[in-house]
């Protein structure tokens, strides 16, 4: 562990050049003033720069490693997108500044709305949600609002497949729904009989991602649509996997009524060590009035050019409302806009093609190298699942052990233990920005660990060995909670 910035702190040390001179404050009631300065670290600029530069070097990242984290779409984040979203005028633009001073910015956002409408095949898009999960919230809240607007108060359940991402059931709960799970059949599709049995007048909707988190395309999607719509429910599309089909198939065409899109996945905005993302929602015609605000409208101006303005409560009285104080994650939206403009019409389909090609190539190569596929009879979408159940049974080496050992080989581990229904699973998503050489190197690393698991299982079980720390004790972390540094106990 690098020392904490607090442990580098020395009383009275300041980055002298940074702060203004300060002033005496004597007009505020003393009872409201803090007695002692806030307990922040005291450090010089060099200390801070060195500390965080060195900390950063302890991270794996796309810019330094292959990062085939399934469902997370760790593809290259174009540097131009960052540079352009950080143009000084955009950075200085206040969210409540008059619209006349933000026409350039609003034009970008409006065009992004249009682009997202087009690729999703929906009738309207709101950019407001700040991540996928908030997009899900907005989507399910719109489903709820729609049922209610029709006087249908009986619908109390949201159906989710057992392969679903955790945000789906969590979102349903936040929207006041009970969650009903439907299982997956042996080929990786939703079990249609069980789905038929599950729907009814209590069904508000179904949340689905297609291709699913099992890395396969839900082949009977039109049957699913018919079943759910037939029962009076709506169809929600979790767009986390949109990159697998962008430019190839539109969720709108599959019959979905609502969709969220993770721009930090399909549109390649950076994950930033945990965020920010953006989760715009798109809807079919009938849900348009409920879209969250603000949205951007383009109106013909007096000079013939478009004038852009925010749409708020007043314009959209049926909206499910506001999800953030201002306008979602504008800077992320700008990055996505730049990315979309650089891809262009043809590039969109290339994303899906190369992502799918890379995944299928890798799947075949890994199968050839002796790995068990969860769905060997299926085409991979942009990702696929390897199950290490047999290896675990034979050697005791778990998917977790295997993942940790991959870190030692200089690649980030795939997603482990998700989806929950596949035992000892590795969900592998190479993304379209990685080259064949990188994929081949990954196959070699996977093979090497497989060999080690068979010949020196303890080496793998005690991995990683070359990281800044060895395997961390998660149980202790939760039991002896230490989430905030305290001066008294730790200096």
């Amino acid at each position, binding site marked *: 562990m690098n020392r904490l910035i607090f442990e580098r702190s020395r009383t009275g040390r300041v980055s002298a050049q940074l702060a203004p001179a300060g002033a005496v404050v004597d007009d505020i009631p003393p009872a409201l003033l803090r007695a002692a300065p806030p307990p922040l670290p005291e*450090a010089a600029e060099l200390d801070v720069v060195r500390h965080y530069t060195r900390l950063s070097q302890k*991270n794996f990242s796309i810019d330094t490693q292959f990062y085939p984290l399934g469902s997370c779409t760790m593809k290259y984040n174009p540097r131009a997108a960052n540079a352009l979203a950080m143009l000084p005028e955009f950075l200085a633009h206040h969210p409540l500044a008059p619209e006349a001073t933000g026409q350039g910015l609003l034009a970008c956002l409006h065009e992004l709305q249009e682009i997202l409408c087009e690729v999703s095949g929906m009738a309207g898009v709101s950019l407001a949600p700040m991540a996928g999960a908030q997009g899900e919230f907005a989507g399910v809240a719109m489903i709820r609002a729609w049922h209610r607007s029709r006087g249908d108060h009986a619908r109390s359940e949201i159906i989710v497949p057992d392969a679903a991402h955790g945000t789906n059931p969590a979102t349903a709960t936040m929207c006041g729904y009970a969650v009903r799970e439907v299982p997956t059949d042996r080929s990786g599709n939703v079990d249609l009989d069980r789905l038929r049995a599950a729907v009814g007048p209590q069904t508000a909707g179904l949340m689905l991602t297609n291709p699913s988190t099992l890395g396969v395309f839900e082949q009977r999607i039109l049957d699913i649509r018919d079943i759910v719509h037939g029962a009076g429910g709506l169809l929600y599309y979790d767009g986390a996997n949109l990159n697998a089909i962008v430019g190839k198939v*539109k969720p709108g065409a599959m019959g979905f009524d609502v969709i969220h899109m993770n721009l930090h996945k399909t549109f390649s905005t950076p994950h930033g060590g945990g965020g920010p993302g953006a989760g715009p929602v798109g809807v079919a015609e009938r849900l348009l009035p409920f879209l969250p605000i603000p949205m951007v409208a383009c109106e013909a101006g007096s000079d013939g050019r478009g004038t852009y303005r925010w749409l708020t409560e007043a314009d959209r009285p049926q909206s499910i409302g506001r999800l953030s104080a201002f306008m979602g994650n504008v800077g992320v939206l700008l990055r996505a806009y730049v990315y979309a403009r650089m891809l262009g019409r043809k590039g969109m389909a290339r994303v899906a093609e190369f992502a799918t090609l890379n995944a299928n190539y890798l799947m075949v190569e890994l199968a050839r190298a002796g790995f068990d596929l969860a769905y060997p009879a299926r085409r991979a979408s942009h990702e696929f699942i390897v199950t290490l159940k047999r290896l675990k049974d034979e050697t005791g080496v778990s998917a977790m052990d295997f993942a940790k050992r991959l870190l030692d080989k200089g690649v980030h581990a795939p997603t482990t233990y998700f989806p929950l229904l596949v035992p000892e699973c590795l969900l592998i998503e190479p993304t379209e920005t990685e080259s064949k050489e990188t994929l081949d190197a990954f196959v070699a690393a996977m093979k090497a660990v497989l060999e080690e698991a068979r010949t020196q299982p303890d080496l793998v079980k005690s991995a990683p060995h070359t990281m800044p720390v060895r395997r961390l004790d998660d149980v202790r972390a939760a039991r002896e909670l230490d989430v905030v540094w305290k001066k008294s106990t730790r200096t």
Partner: protein
Amino acid sequence: MLDAAGVGGIDALFDEIPAQLKQVRLERVPEALNEMQVTRLLQERAAQDGRWSSFIGAGAYEHYIPAAVWQLVTRGEFYSAYTPYQAEASQGTLQLLYEYQSMIAGLTGLDAANASLYDGASALAEAILMAVRLHKSSRRILLPANLHPHYAAVARALTSSQGVELIELSYDSRRGTITPDALPLDGAAALVIAQPNAFGGLEDVHALTDRAHAHGVLVIAVVNPVSLGLLNAPGEWGTQGADIAVGEGQPLGVPLSGGGPYFGFMTCKAAHIRQMPGRIAGRTVDLDGTPGFTLTLQAREQHIRRSKATSNICTNQGLAVTAATIHMALLGPAGLQRVAQTCHANLLALLERLQPLGVRPRFSASCFHEVVIDVGAPAPAVLAAMRAQGVLGGFDLGQWSPELSSSLLVCVTETKTMADLDHYAQALAAALSGRSSQERAS
């Protein structure tokens, strides 16, 4: 690669997709631009928006951000990493989050913090849901009417499906603050206190907190983190301190950027941590006993607890938190204090310049760095006239409430020089005398 993948062509990769779905046209997506072209386009749009001398605050604040902050934040290792699920390969992000939690908990005077929520408004909504979980028997929340209306709107949107009841508390029309007496505290789960309130005014947080606690009501503090360089921390409010503190993290090193990405912070008393939503980094040890960091209490989260999770939040605002952490480390206690003091002093200096114009604060409570002034004329016209002189003179409060239609919410931070304040006063004087608009017409 196609060969190796066992397909004859790219199309075969999509052969499991029903054919009738594959008719895709993307007419509304423009043709590709290369990087140079898209750069030119965006530069032109940015130039079109221009730069202004802005005195708008109202929940998002212009502060000076040291150059080192974003040069570090955009290092690929921070910028392009995922959520630190593989802890051993993410010690950089994890240690930073732990340091962030320590700083923000220290700043708010509370015991525990999460690693961020989406923004200040949604953080308040999450705090309300958390308070309801903690209180168990009541779902009634008291929201002051001088809370930022967007915060109230977000709280409504995010909590309404769960049967939460939001009760509005009116404010004293002279002071602009909430009066501690006669609050409908009985049977409430939590009282929300905004300090400063949406008018920039300072509430009597000690009395409010103590009253609430006397009725078994939890206190949720909504605070501006920069103001905490000067004002006392929520953890010090009243005799026991607020129970949960939330707020908008943007003023801590995050650019205005048209409204986001910002981040919401949340801190709480130690006893409440298991009801906190969002990610939390914790310190632990590795196999050798070496200290290290990992995400902890994940059993609260959606990827483990699914429909029973404390929230559905997954991706948060990590990179903005990275900026805030570095920003706070650079400023340090003295720096944050001096920024807060300068903001306040600059606000007073502006008010002094407005006195000769007969323009005075609308409310009598002390302010931090934002104040409501009455310009005695319709705000939109006044603001438009000031804009013609390059000044964004404040936020038109008529947008929030008709009775404030001649009121501006004006914010002054440390970024303003005395010359800027002079310029503001001149622009306002001209706007009020109508000179400026005449000049434009000529």
